[in-house]
């Protein structure tokens, strides 16, 4: 029996269109990044990567990512737990609030943080009086990165925990298990893959975030420049190879993320088959 739209001509046309689009819009730019990065040889590439400012940017980016992940992890798990295991007034509103960072443009987020915590801002002027500087320094970058990435873990966990229900946890508590033990031995093993997936997405976004960070960072070379900001500066300075060398690093991180994500999904599918 033939399915609707399954004529050979239609099929060939659709496949060709899909492959062509994927090649033009996804694959070609990726190849171009690496081609440009190595356009003047490995030595020049390496020199650009090991440049002091580039190294500083890499370091800052990694530090921000490493600090962001645990915060998002704890926040995401706590929030998912709260929303799926308890009934309280305002629960739905809270679930909607989680999505604000997805809905708001990152630049707007950056500006709002600047307005609040900048030197003349509402909270910032008080902080300034106590000699605490958040904006145009790494704490500001961390703050906006957390804002932008905080929904990822919660968004991964909520549907899963809703589907699993709380019966296993109830069973554990009737067997006398204390709260922390229940979380460690019953809840966590059931959500670990979704959790890891959420962390991978969080990491990808934390490393790549540009808009929000560019507003609050001040882009001081060697101090508050993250890798995406550094890349943009190099490009503005007509250092194409340098810019693409940095870009290739970001692309590499993205590729690793995709591989990790795909292998997790593959694992999940295999586990389903077993069950």
């Amino acid at each position, binding site marked *: 029996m033939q399915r609707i739209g399954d004529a050979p001509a239609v099929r060939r046309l659709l496949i060709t269109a899909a492959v062509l689009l994927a090649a033009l819009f996804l694959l070609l730019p990726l190849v171009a990044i690496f081609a440009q990065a190595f356009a003047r040889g490995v030595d020049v590439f390496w020199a650009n990567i090991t440049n002091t400012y580039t190294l500083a940017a890499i370091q800052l980016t990694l530090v921000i990512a490493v600090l962001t992940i645990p915060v998002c992890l704890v926040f995401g798990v706590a929030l998912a737990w709260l929303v799926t295991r308890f009934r309280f007034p305002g629960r739905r509103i809270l679930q909607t609030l989680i999505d604000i960072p997805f809905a708001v443009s990152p630049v707007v987020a950056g500006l709002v943080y600047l307005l609040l915590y900048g030197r003349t801002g509402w909270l910032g002027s008080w902080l300034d009086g106590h000699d605490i500087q958040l904006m145009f320094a790494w704490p500001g970058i961390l703050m906006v990165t957390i804002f932008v990435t905080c929904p990822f873990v919660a968004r991964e966990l909520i549907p899963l925990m809703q589907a699993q229900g709380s*019966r*296993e946890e*109830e*069973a*554990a*508590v*009737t*067997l*006398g*298990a*204390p709260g922390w*033990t229940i979380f460690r*031995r*019953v809840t966590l*093993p*059931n959500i670990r893959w979704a959790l890891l997936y959420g962390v991978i997405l969080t990491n990808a976004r934390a490393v790549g975030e540009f808009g929000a960070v560019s507003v609050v960072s001040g882009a001081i070379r060697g101090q508050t420049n993250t890798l995406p900001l550094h890349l943009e500066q190099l490009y503005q300075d007509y250092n194409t190879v340098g810019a693409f060398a940095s870009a290739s690093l970001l692309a590499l991180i993205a590729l690793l993320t995709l591989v990790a994500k795909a292998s997790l999904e593959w694992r999940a599918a295999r586990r389903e088959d*077993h*069950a």
Partner: protein
Amino acid sequence: MSIRLHAIGKHFGKTQALEPVDLDIAEGELVGLLGPSGSGKTTLLRIIAGLETADREPGGRILFGERDVTHLHVRDRRIGFVFQHYALFRHMTVFDNVAFGLTVMPRKQRPSSGEIRSRVHRLLEMVKLEHMAQRYPAQLSGGQQQRVSLARALALRPDVLLLDEPFGALDAKVRQELRRWLRHLHDELNFTSLFVTHDQEEALELSDRVVVMSDGRIEQIDTPDVLYRRPANRFVFEFLGDVNHLEGSVRNGVLTCGDARLAVDLADGPEELLLRPHEVELAEKPAAHAHMPVTVTAISPVGAEVRVELAADWLGEPWLATIRHADYERLALARGVRLYALPRHWHRFPAERDHQPSKTVATTS
């Protein structure tokens, strides 16, 4: 250990899921909580377990033996709880599931790992699953999973065992088997157990006493025998089995309904009688006390008795009669055959406490 409840009620928001109830369960008793869905039986069970908190009413008390557990946390109540859908820990083996309660005990009270192992194996032996110890729940059948969940609940030697629709998700044959097996286990180990079910047959077969509930109220608490023979009200009667209705008006000791007549010893006025299927006899001729012509519309000869569906102009809804196979053959029953129904016995609940409180009711016994 005995379970005693006093004035335990529950509201969910503004709806009353459970009217304040009193309930006494003796040590070693196996009691069924029976009712349709929404009758509050599961809520009551979960309150006893501590998974749900009762309304804070001044007199509300839950006692296990002499121990007041009203304000005790679930984990300190020493109960075993069996869930309808087993709620096994899906990422643990059967062995680890059963051992869980023992391994999460405070370090000082926890048995040695050797003792845990031997205790778990004894439990698995009891539920006949020793050879499945290293399997995961997803690799077991529903009946096996429920047995694991029972072993897990019994591992801590609980004071009381609470089961929420323990056989509800299983197919009929496995359900029968597990039911019998639970009864044996109960008689052997003699714990106090309370189970929830919406299946009348299950409640009557398994329980020492049955608590019939509807609309968040306890309608009757009795042994299965008394419950079936002397139902306290119409709800209990109708819930415990198939019912045939006969509505008509009585005049001079004869109830008339269309062209059907039945001699009754009742005062004049409208009347509704209820009959169980086995209380309806079938005959080729009307009797002196009953003239009730019916037509056979369906026959199901499967089982110990033959189920016969009867229709007539004077009947709103068809009747169901169960007769012996011998009578079935003697009467040469077939679809379309015309016969006479002879009520052997009937019930009436005139003093019905109606579920709409606006109606007033007479108080006849």
